[in-house]
């Protein structure tokens, strides 16, 4: 286990630098924005030049960019993300309120795409070049070419508008007083379409990776050796070929988490799911720069944590990771 611990420690140290770059970079980018939170406030609330001046001073916006960056970093150390003008609430509270919905959506969509995708990938990769393989891989390519927002709309037209099987939007029935299991079921029911829209596209990615990985493993000597040892084909496919081909998929799981978070912006917007992605769109609409910065930062931290978990999982799956000590 020291092997895994060493890896985690190294990743954590690297992550601190990465997050620092993210904070400074996105802060500088958002500084370049024409207009600031005060403008946004005045546009929505009204006010004169005097109010603008006093607000700028009160929010520290009259200081230099570097001073404000230092102030921002200092506040971050105290887990203070600033104040959202659009919501008139601390950004941390707004973001943390929305985060669980996005994590639920992302987690479910990831599970769907990873497990179903790799399973279908094994089916395709078990006999490379077979009709089954060609159908599955070309079909998955077509699926991978579908824009997620459009798939979402088509799902809405078919399952919500025409068939009326599933709810059109939202995360739960509005103004229902459901509690406990009934509420969980209600939320799950609402999330079926969003999860499918987000998950099916990445399913294609995992299917293709699994298939391509297996095609590569089939060519390796140890598979010929396994055949020479007379192992049943089923065991060769599952215990050797698929097992080895799975490793890059686990890496992809980490890389993909950032893309999934980005993809949830559109999906949450189509289905009106009150999550982080929709919040980002609201922040853009309201010119709420500090809120946007907070969302980017929280997303980055989420991605870092997911990657850490993925690294640990990978180290458990691949005995070679971090093992340079044996000659």
């Amino acid at each position, binding site marked *: 286990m020291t092997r895994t611990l060493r890896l985690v420690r190294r990743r954590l140290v690297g992550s601190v630098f990465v997050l620092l770059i993210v904070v400074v970079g996105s802060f500088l980018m958002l500084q370049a924005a024409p207009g600031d939170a005060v403008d946004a406030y005045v546009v929505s609330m009204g006010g004169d030049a005097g109010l603008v001046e006093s607000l700028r001073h009160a929010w520290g916006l009259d200081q230099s960019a570097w001073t404000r960056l230092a102030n921002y970093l200092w506040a971050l150390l105290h887990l203070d993300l600033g104040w959202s003008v659009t919501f008139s609430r601390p950004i941390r509270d707004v973001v943390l309120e929305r985060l669980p919905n996005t994590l639920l959506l992302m987690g479910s969509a990831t599970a769907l795409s990873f497990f179903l995708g790799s399973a279908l990938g094994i089916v395709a990769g078990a006999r490379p070049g077979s009709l089954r393989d060609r159908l599955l891989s070309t079909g998955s390519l077509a699926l991978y070419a579908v824009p997620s927002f459009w798939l979402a709309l088509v799902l809405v037209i078919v399952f919500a508008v025409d068939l009326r099987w599933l709810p059109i939007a939202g995360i739960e029935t509005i103004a229902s007083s459901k509690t406990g299991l009934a509420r969980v079921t209600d939320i799950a029911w609402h999330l079926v379409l969003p999860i499918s829209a987000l998950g099916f596209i990445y399913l294609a990615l995992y299917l293709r990776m699994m298939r391509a990985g297996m095609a590569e493993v089939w060519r390796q000597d*140890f598979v010929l050796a396994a055949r020479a*040892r007379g192992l049943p084909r089923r065991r060769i496919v599952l215990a050797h070929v698929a097992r080895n081909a799975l490793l890059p998929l686990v890496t992809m799981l980490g890389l993909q988490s950032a893309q999934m978070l980005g993809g949830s912006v559109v999906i949450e917007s189509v289905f009106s799911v009150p999550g982080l992605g929709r919040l980002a769109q609201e922040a853009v609409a309201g010119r709420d720069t500090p809120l946007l910065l907070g969302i980017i930062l929280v997303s980055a931290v989420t991605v870092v944590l997911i990657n850490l978990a993925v690294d640990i999982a990978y180290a458990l799956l691949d005995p*070679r990771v971090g093992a340079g000590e044996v000659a």
Partner: protein
Amino acid sequence: MSAAQQAPLVALRGLTVAYGDDAPALSAIDLDIRAGERLALIGESGSGKSTLALAFADLLPASAKTAGTIEWEGTSPLGGRDIGFVFQNPAGSLDPVMAVGRQVAEVARTHLGLSWPDALARACDLFGRVGLPDPDTLVHAFPHQLSGGQKQRVALAAAIAARPKLLIADEATSALDTIVQAEIVALIRRLAAEDGMTLLFVSHDIALAAELADRIAVLRGGRLMELGPTRQVIGRPQNSYTRSLIAAHIGLDSPPLFAAANMSAPANG
């Protein structure tokens, strides 16, 4: 030489193998392997010796076109149960992410119908037999934690796990250094003797083959050049190609081939 009187374990008749549209890798090979013998198959690159080894174990790629027959004594054999196969590359022939003990145990499980615990116990015994140190610990090791020689011992343990009649070693020692090679050859010889296994030893090294085998088959360009008892093939080769192979061999017992070059060099030391 009791082996000489026994019925052949395998009889090849007119075996021809071609990959794609290229010239055949093997042309009309007739060859008997006698039960209990140590037969060496030697040849240079492109001679078809590996193709022949793979053909015995039914491991040729699906794209290979074959003609001719391979007849076995009794029923048709099953890879792993009746034929053990050891490959050239010790690093490549083991699954990198499975503990080596399991890779041996799964063979025993498949062919001997053992439960996992029994199969793992058998793997442990086999590790001892192939001379791996501390078998109880090593069964849990992964291939990257072993040296090349140790990996080849694991591959041998997997090959003999189901007590096969025939052991095929396809250049099994050529990726190893001289000292380890000698150890593995000695081990193969011992295992074959202890279990009464027939041995097919495929090699490019004529001296190595001469030290190990009862009989030697010489291949060139997919054709069988010469086949006979080792003493005869090495001592009184009939075929001109065999003679040229022996002449080209540079060994410890060969005369210095470049005496002239050495003489003209300035004396020193």
